[in-house]
């Protein structure tokens, strides 16, 4: 097993056990950290360069769990993990956590979510990292050096940490539901206006069930619940009844101050997380599209169909950008003959390595 995969195993084991507690308190996390004596992960390194590189690597790994598509619980766990790793590292000066500009919006939104849901400990820790200047504000998450290094394969991180995603929840988001509701209301009113009795539409115009939006919502929630249960029971051979019990009364360990808010936030995340997440990412994409489309069609009433066609054009755009990969050219260097008078020197066929030590040491 390589060092990188060992590191991933350790981080995921810690995050997994945090996930199992079904709790987002730092108190709980720090207990798990202490049990494993996780700070010793930096021990046994005597060379400073090695130390720096390892620390960069582990911070980079932890950072990846902090961003979507990971669940709220894992993201909070990742924040605590980053805090722990940053604070207990042995480098001087401390290695920094890299934030890319494109991630910043997401990070800020997460901090706002923490504050709104009154997860004060998590919000406090993020604030503390910022005060401690633990971040490098960068262009991209990692350094990019074209193909000069052997291609580093992006390792797949634990699938179970990810927010459940499926086509249904991507298609029908909170936004879409809201819009459907608006369109439906609007439609009802229009029908009333042209009806003989102004307060309700004529029978002949009643072509759609009145509560269909609510029905759709319920069906989606039901589907998600089913999917969640399926996921849990397949990943663990636990009694499913016990799971539901735990889920319903799991907030008892929380500190009193934020208990109620916690419970509320949990209920919210439990029932809406997949829906809410998808809608966010969608909103984000929309903004991007609008800015590149010189802002036409910004009216509030957008029909779902219009949105869908936009999404499709997004997909084709993505495909196009993939194709440019093939067009990448290798850089070739042509040998140019010098026209100045130069000596004839044959290429040395030595396989000798470059001398690592500076000249002054050799000539002494």
């Amino acid at each position: 097993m390589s060092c990188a995969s060992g590191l991933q195993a350790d981080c995921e084991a810690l995050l997994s056990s945090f996930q199992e507690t079904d709790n987002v308190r730092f108190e709980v996390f720090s207990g798990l950290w202490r049990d494993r004596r996780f700070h010793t992960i930096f021990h046994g390194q005597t060379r400073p360069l090695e130390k720096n590189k390892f620390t960069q690597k582990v911070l980079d790994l932890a950072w990846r769990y902090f961003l979507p598509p990971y669940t709220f619980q894992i993201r909070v766990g990742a924040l605590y993990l980053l805090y722990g790793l940053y604070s207990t590292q042995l480098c001087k000066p401390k290695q920094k956590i890299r934030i890319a500009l494109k991630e910043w919006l997401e990070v800020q939104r997460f901090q706002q979510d923490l504050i709104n849901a009154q997860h004060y400990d998590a919000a406090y820790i993020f604030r503390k990292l910022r005060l401690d200047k633990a971040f490098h504000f960068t262009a991209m998450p990692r350094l990019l050096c074209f193909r000069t290094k052997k291609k580093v394969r992006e390792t797949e991180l634990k699938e179970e940490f990810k927010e459940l995603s499926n086509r249904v929840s991507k298609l029908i988001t909170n936004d879409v539901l809201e819009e459907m509701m608006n369109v439906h209301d609007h439609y009802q009113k229009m029908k009333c206006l042209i009806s003989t009795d102004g307060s309700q539409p004529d029978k002949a115009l009643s072509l759609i069930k009145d509560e269909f939006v609510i029905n759709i919502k319920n069906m989606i929630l039901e589907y998600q619940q089913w999917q969640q249960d399926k996921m849990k029971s397949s990943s663990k051979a636990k009694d499913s009844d016990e799971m539901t019990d735990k889920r319903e009364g799991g907030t008892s360990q929380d500190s009193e101050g934020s208990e109620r808010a916690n419970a509320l936030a949990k209920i919210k995340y439990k029932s809406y997380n997949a829906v809410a997440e998808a809608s966010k990412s969608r909103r984000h994409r929309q903004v991007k599209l609008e800015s590149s489309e010189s802002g036409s069609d910004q009216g509030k009433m957008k029909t779902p169909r219009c949105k869908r066609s936009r999404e499709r054009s997004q997909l084709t755009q993505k495909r196009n950008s993939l194709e440019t990969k093939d067009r990448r050219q290798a850089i070739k260097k042509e040998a140019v003959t010098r026209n100045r008078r130069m000596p004839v020197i044959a290429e040395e066929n030595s396989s000798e390595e470059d001398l690592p030590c500076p000249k002054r040491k050799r000539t002494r």
Partner: protein
Amino acid sequence: MAGSSGGASGAVPEYEVPELHTRVFHVGSFGALWKRSLPGAELAVQGAAAEDGAAAVAEELGCGLETAAELRAVCSIDMLKSPDKEEDPEIISEDSSLVTLRIRKKALERREETIIVDRTCRQETFTYEMESHAIGKRPKDPADLIEEGELFLTLNIFYPVIFQKHKDHKPYQTVLVLGSQKLTELRDSISCVSDLQMGGEFSSHPDQAPEHISKDLYKSAFFYFEGIFYNDRRHSECRDLSRTIIEWSESHDRGYGNLQTAKMEDYTFNDLSIKVGFPYLFCHQGDCEHIIIITDIRLVHQDDCLDRTLYPLQIKKHWLWTRKCFVCKMYTARWVTNEDSLAPEDPCFFCDVCFRMLHYDAEGNKLGEFLAYPYVDPGTFN
């Protein structure tokens, strides 16, 4: 300015090819966007730490004073430390459950068994020193302090490929430049043997050789970024090296679109539109080409070297193999001879002292037949 797209939407770097390089973005606008996104205290490169009292916490998080005070204790780093026993961070404890530590322990044991440790260790120490020698430095003159919000660009500058063995693994140096620095400041900092190359055969008058250093003779150079050649036009004798390329491109309709030229001395890195991770070019001495890759751009941090005068700052270089004198086997070669009646091989390399001792008498008269050329070793800048 040429090549600047300006707008905020184009200033957020995104991948064009995942994990490889970004789309084109304007460096200055990117920096401005970060600056706008962060409060002043977070940008500051010096000064007192921001307010961390309970009142500040309570206000920012919207919680009560009591909760704020409590948070400080609950979230303390001490919560992560195991108080049970004293430990030496250099030693891996036996009973750890961490996979990382088991792997590291094995690697350390293996390392102890082999002898190469000393050499890799020395090499590593040197790389580390190179990387960190300037960290935390402050200028003597406060006017040279790097301002908050300044951008740091990390550049890999590749050596021209001179050895066959470097064909696949090209050596490079890494430098840090500031967004507000001019392209010419980078150009002047790039050290390359071809600048020291001396053209010509000097066997009859070896003392004249040093007068003909290429850097002084051929001052032209250009950078190429995103369709624009930035030519060094500071000296009247500088030629527009890019003109031939542009004419070639246009005359054959090569499909490279509109290639433009600009003056290197008029542009800072903030003025450029570039892709991070994409290969560009630096060309000097007519045909000495160096690939340049901007691997990273970020805001300056208070732990960085904040002395502006030390930039461009070299933080990594490659040790090139050096040719030694054939006679003393000690000093780096300064001369190379062809058709040398006094030498056992052709070509043959000599340091200055051995070369003169062997090839000239006390009065400086040439002995025997040979052609002599000044030789600049690629490892000169080691």
